[in-house]
């Protein structure tokens, strides 16, 4: 093989590695630590979108199991008018663990960490009927503030059905 071809191949490999690194860095999002007042603002903010807010934690097995459904929802063009927010209730000390989780799973959805310790002081501010179990998901119509709260795990493909039904009830 002529030497210049080898060089070209080297270049190709370097470009490929570089691109791969850029993609990895781009997907490793920095997550914001927010307080309950910030979350309330997000919930109440008027918007043309339907908000899907999922409460989860890295230690919660059923939460992790349903995570791909939220990613699929984001990727699905049918739900372009849906805005997804994954609210981690992991301890703030574990923020690096949450970041690693996001990178490893290549999550495209926006993630924030709710930096509160006394759950009794904020659970009712999200939803008075919430017992405190996760996973839990809140659907909000940004225009009318109509809400649907589900304290449960979604079985295969159930999330899309639930969101579709919620949108069609408009």
């Amino acid at each position, binding site marked *: 093989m002529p030497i210049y071809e080898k060089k070209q191949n080297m270049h190709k490999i370097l470009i490929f590695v570089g691109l791969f690194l850029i993609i990895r860095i781009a997907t490793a999002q920095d997550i914001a630590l927010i307080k309950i007042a910030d979350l309330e603002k997000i919930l109440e903010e008027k918007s043309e979108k339907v908000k899907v807010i999922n409460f989860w*934690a890295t*230690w*919660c*097995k*059923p939460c992790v199991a349903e995570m791909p459904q939220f990613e699929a929802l984001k990727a699905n063009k049918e739900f372009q008018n849906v805005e997804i927010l994954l609210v981690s*209730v992991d*301890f703030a*000390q574990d923020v690096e663990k949450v970041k690693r989780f996001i990178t490893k799973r290549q999550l495209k959805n926006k993630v924030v960490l709710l930096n509160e*310790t*006394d*759950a*009794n*002081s904020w*659970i*009712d501010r999200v939803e008075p*009927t*919430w*017992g*405190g*179990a*996760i*996973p839990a998901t809140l659907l909000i119509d940004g225009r009318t503030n109509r809400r*649907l*709260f*589900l*304290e*449960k*795990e979604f079985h295969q493909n159930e999330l899309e059905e639930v969101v579709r039904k919620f949108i069609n009830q408009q």
Partner: protein
Amino acid sequence: MKLFLIVFFFLCNLLPSKEVTKATGYEVGDFATDFKLKNVDGKMVSLADYKDAKGFILVFTCNECPYALLYEDRIIELHNKFANKGYPVIAINANDAVKSPDDSYEKIQKRAKSKKFPFPYLFDETQEVTKTYGATNTPHNFVLQKEDGKYKVSYIGAIDDNSRDAAKAKKKYIEDAVNALIEGKPVPTTKTKAIGCTIKWKS
């Protein structure tokens, strides 16, 4: 009649759907039922067995929930602090062993042994007791006060306000509740909520 039923079901559908397997459960002030469940030592345990108890700290917990595990040592402390004052801890495993294999009878026996639980750790195989009390997540706690042979629910909720770090807890709900009951005072906070794992119900 048919039309009435159709309208009725239509209206039911309009109600906000909350697809949770939630039995009615107890509220503070209700009288709780006794039960008979198998302990990790193979013996059956009932509230009625505790002739001298003034009340109970009932803990619905499990082996697999990280939040439940974070509270294990605090539950042992509660028992050591209050059992001789008439308020022992009774722990009940709330999960279905099929849905959550870590909560099989053998696994809860192992857990009780390795943590040297000084209180019973009961196996609620049918989950009837968990459902009747209305526990929804683990750990979910109930403080009962004996009144004329009945068991009055005096507190429902969390152990304290900091799951991660016992040393940083500012409000110790169960301690405060039991201390108030011992002193014959009203329980300061009767109901709280906490983040926890969903109970894995039998399908």
